[in-house]
């Protein structure tokens, strides 16, 4: 396929110096890019660290219900509002076509946010900070979060999940 065919015994020839140098440069670049992924993850703080657990929609719903009962402080349009203590495990479930519950979190405190779906694949999109994660049934996706700004954040579904997809709007409130 080359313009000039290589010598028949090319696999047994000694590698030339300039070729060795180029191979060395290519090797160093690939190692640097590999290490850069790790450095970027640690220092840029753009990629979230997460853990995933295996679960069932029934189990996750039961846990979310228990979480709501434990920390419920009110209701908003029929959706329970919860205020969990800082540092705790926080549950949010996506279902056709709502997010449950509304979360009240404290600015600067760390939470372990558990997200899963009761039915189909959803996508959790926290706006306007634009954080997006997949929400899959049978998997508990745990994000360690620390809200850095206060206010109301809309939680929308960014994975088409059915006829009421556009109405699937939840809320996270971050207090000072």
């Amino acid at each position, binding site marked *: *396929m080359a313009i000039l065919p290589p010598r028949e015994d090319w*696999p047994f020839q000694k590698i030339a110096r300039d070729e060795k140098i180029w191979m060395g440069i290519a090797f160093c670049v690939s190692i640097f890019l590999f290490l850069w992924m790790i450095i970027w993850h640690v220092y840029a703080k753009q990629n979230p660290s997460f853990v995933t657990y*295996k679960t069932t929609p029934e189990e996750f719903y039961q*846990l979310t219900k*228990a979480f709501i009962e434990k920390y419920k402080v009110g209701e908003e349009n029929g959706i329970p509002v919860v205020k969990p203590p800082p540092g705790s495990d926080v549950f949010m479930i996506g279902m056709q076509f709502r997010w449950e519950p509304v979360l009240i979190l404290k600015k600067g405190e760390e939470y372990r946010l558990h997200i899963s779906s009761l039915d189909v694949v959803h996508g959790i999109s926290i706006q306007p900070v634009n954080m997006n994660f997949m929400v899959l049934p049978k998997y508990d996706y745990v994000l360690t979060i620390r809200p850095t700004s206060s206010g109301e954040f809309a939680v929308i579904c960014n994975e088409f999940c059915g006829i009421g997809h556009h109405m699937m709007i939840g809320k996270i409130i971050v207090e000072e």
Partner: protein
Amino acid sequence: MSEEKRSSPIKDFFDDFMLLLFLGVTIYAASYLIWGLMELAWLPPIPDEIKQSLLGR
């Protein structure tokens, strides 16, 4: 005296670009597939401490 071309298995392998293309796609596809299946198979369940803290049992 017949002139026989000297050939080696390594040369034949590296000269077969269709084989290289096939292996280049297949090896990575299979590796990622197996890696993904292993990840899914080895996922732990939700820890009991979390369940107990909410369900109280």
